[in-house]
């Protein structure tokens, strides 16, 4: 087994692999060439710097997941074990929203407002569709926390972020199990994502906030 040295832990997942995964999920297939507009970037975490900016970035992702799972539950397309899993997913993301909001407010920072999200119709039309999009959202959350974690300056905030990041990892396995992937815990090391990779993954759900590029790599 290829054993990474310390420096390899910080190597983000290659763009090719990440966008291949997105394309396989039939979501954001154009994301490889997507121009992330300033408006979209501002919608994700506002324009604050430092720890507040990072926590607002995380807050936006938690809002995204919370809203998606709430919509999925409201549609009534889930049953059996999937219903239990997604109910907990929604509850957890809500608690994460609350915790991150409290941390920001307690520190005198302003929580970013929740954007309006739009999800592909097929992702809410069936249990399989819900699970499929969840299988993209949760690893994006893991990658976001692992990418942002080393940049958090306040150790109290860093430890708090870890307690949330770990649960996103929990979610990844619960979803793989629903997908029938055996074994569901099948990754020895999890990978960070850059902010740009995370933005590319979630921009499609911000509606008019992003536009396809005419060519070349994405960027703003």
């Amino acid at each position, binding site marked *: *087994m290829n*054993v990474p*040295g*310390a*420096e390899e*832990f*910080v190597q983000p997942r290659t763009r090719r692999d990440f966008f291949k995964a997105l394309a396989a999920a039939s979501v954001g297939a154009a994301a490889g060439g997507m121009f992330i507009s300033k408006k979209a970037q501002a919608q994700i975490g506002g324009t604050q710097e*430092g*720890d*507040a900016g990072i926590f607002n970035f995380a807050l936006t992702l938690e809002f995204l997941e919370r809203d998606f799972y709430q919509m999925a539950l409201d549609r009534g397309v889930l049953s059996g*074990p999937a219903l239990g*899993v997604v*109910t*907990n*997913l929604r*509850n*957890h993301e809500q*608690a994460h929203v*609350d*915790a991150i*909001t*409290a*941390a920001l*407010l*307690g*520190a*005198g*920072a302003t929580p970013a407002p929740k954007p309006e999200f739009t999800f592909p119709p097929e992702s809410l039309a069936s249990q399989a569709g819900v699970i499929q999009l969840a299988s993209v959202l949760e690893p994006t959350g*893991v990658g976001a926390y*692992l990418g942002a*974690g*080393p940049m*958090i*300056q*306040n*150790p*109290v*905030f*860093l*430890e*708090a972020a*870890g*307690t949330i*990041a*770990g*649960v996103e*990892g*929990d979610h990844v*396995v*619960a979803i793989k*199990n629903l997908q029938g992937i*055996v*074994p*569901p*815990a*099948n990754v*020895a090391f*999890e*990978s*960070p994502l850059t902010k740009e990779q995370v933005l590319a993954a979630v921009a499609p759900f911000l509606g008019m906030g992003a536009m396809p590029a005419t060519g070349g790599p994405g960027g703003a």
Partner: protein
Amino acid sequence: MDADIGRTSPVGFDQEHSRRSFLKTAAWATAAISAAGIGGFGVATRFADAQAPPNYPTYQGLGDAAILGFALQLERLEGTFYARGVDAGLFSGPALAQIATIRDHEMAHVDALAGTLASLGAPVPPPPNLTFPPGTFGDPGTFLGLAATFEPVGIGAYGGAAAALESKDLLAAALSIHNVECQHRVAINILQGILPPNNLTFEPTLPFGAVVEAVAPFGVTPG
């Protein structure tokens, strides 16, 4: 200034909340205020009510090499445990696939941590002499019960030590492995038939002393 959210518990809040709800001691408030001077927001910060006190201060006197060395011993404990579980023939089919994969992950963590220590020029502790309670490998239920206690210890250790690490590269490594240990915990839940298996809202960190105490009976010491 307190941020009193005043929220009610979400529907279906898991058992972890009731354990955490009493944690409003002065200790973490003091830690948070002293931590605020380090950087970031510059004002006193605190966790939301559902969070535990920060535990990273209990790892701060150790140094990165000692933290990694202890993590290495924890991974050796887990890797040996899962390897013996496979070798005892306790599992078959998908359960065996999962247990064997967890073993492989822990062994990969062992190799990575040992390699990192060596590349830092730090001493690599010798493998511990491990002992497990009688009957550990006698039946799947007993084995999985012990697995269910091991994973939270590793999760709590990585989660607590992360913010005490000085190197940002090592922090990235710790976050990566921490996430995988969380994934293992849920995988063990699945094997134990716990539904839904994603049953924690936050993955708790542990203070250093609690981790030391938890693994001492198996022959693991910080060294």
